[in-house]
């Protein structure tokens, strides 16, 4: 009986570890997919010279599907006016992008350890510039 009580006390603690492995795997896999989605959208933006409505829409749809969130939760900031390929470096002709997604439940058993839901989430952001390959008309 004593051992059973000890088991009951220890079991939730051990389960937290198992859940944490799963969260880590899931979050890591989602972030990898996010990187792939951004890579595809960025390559399209290089060709178009900017992030078109269609590219942004596809990116948001893909990211939302991979993370199991709504498209409105996907943060996107970026160049939406055409930039052109130039033969001299000009930072004004670079395409900017910043994509962020909320990651919920960073740590398993948050309530058990007294971690507030607000503190147990983060916004994962990928931000960079890329050169436009669009030639001027």
């Amino acid at each position: 009986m004593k051992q059973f009580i000890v088991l009951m006390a220890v079991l939730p603690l051990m389960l937290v570890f198992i859940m944490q492995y799963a969260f880590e795997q899931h979050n890591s896999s989602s972030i990898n997919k996010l990187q792939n989605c951004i890579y595809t959208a960025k390559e399209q933006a290089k060709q178009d010279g900017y992030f078109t409505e269609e590219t942004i829409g596809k990116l948001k749809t893909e990211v939302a599907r991979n993370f199991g969130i709504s498209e409105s939760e996907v943060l996107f900031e970026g160049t939406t006016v055409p930039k052109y390929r130039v033969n001299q470096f000009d930072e004004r002709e670079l395409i900017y992008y910043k994509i962020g997604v909320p990651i919920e439940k960073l740590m398993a058993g948050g309530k058990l350890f007294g971690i507030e839901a607000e503190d147990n989430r983060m916004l994962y952001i990928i931000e960079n510039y890329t050169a436009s390959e669009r030639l001027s008309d």
Partner: protein
Amino acid sequence: MKILIVFLAILILNISFLTYQGDLGRYLRLQNTVKAIAEECGAGAALFFDSSQFAEGYLIARPEEGQKHIAYILAHSQPVAALSEQGSLNCQVIYFDDSLQSRTYLNGLLQRVSPFTFPFYYTDEQNRGILVAEPSVIVTITLVTEDLFRLPYLETTEVTRSAMYELRSENH
């Protein structure tokens, strides 16, 4: 007492594994990020070439413009810019073009000019090789930072990734 010892052993094992898993994920993500930045640097630098020579059918790179692009990308790339503040960031860029003089830049400074002919088998300091058959830009980024693994028996302080951007030339 025996149960306590077994419990502590399992606890330490779990914590170690969890720490390793988290650090490994971060390390792999950092590798992907550095690779993406190297690709961006290479692709951007390859866009700048001498237009008058191009009209003659030769692709001659303009490294002075390419280096400005690379410096800008490196300065604005998170988390590499943040991590490099704790350690150091080396960026080696090699231009192979129709001048048949490869030019090697390290952190924006010209280090070496060497003659070559296409096709050329390029090998880096770690003996990793690649065939250069067209005008190309090879970018190698080395990030040295604090130990990326928190476990005492693992030590990785360096992330190195390379990217090569190749331009098609009618001469080859």
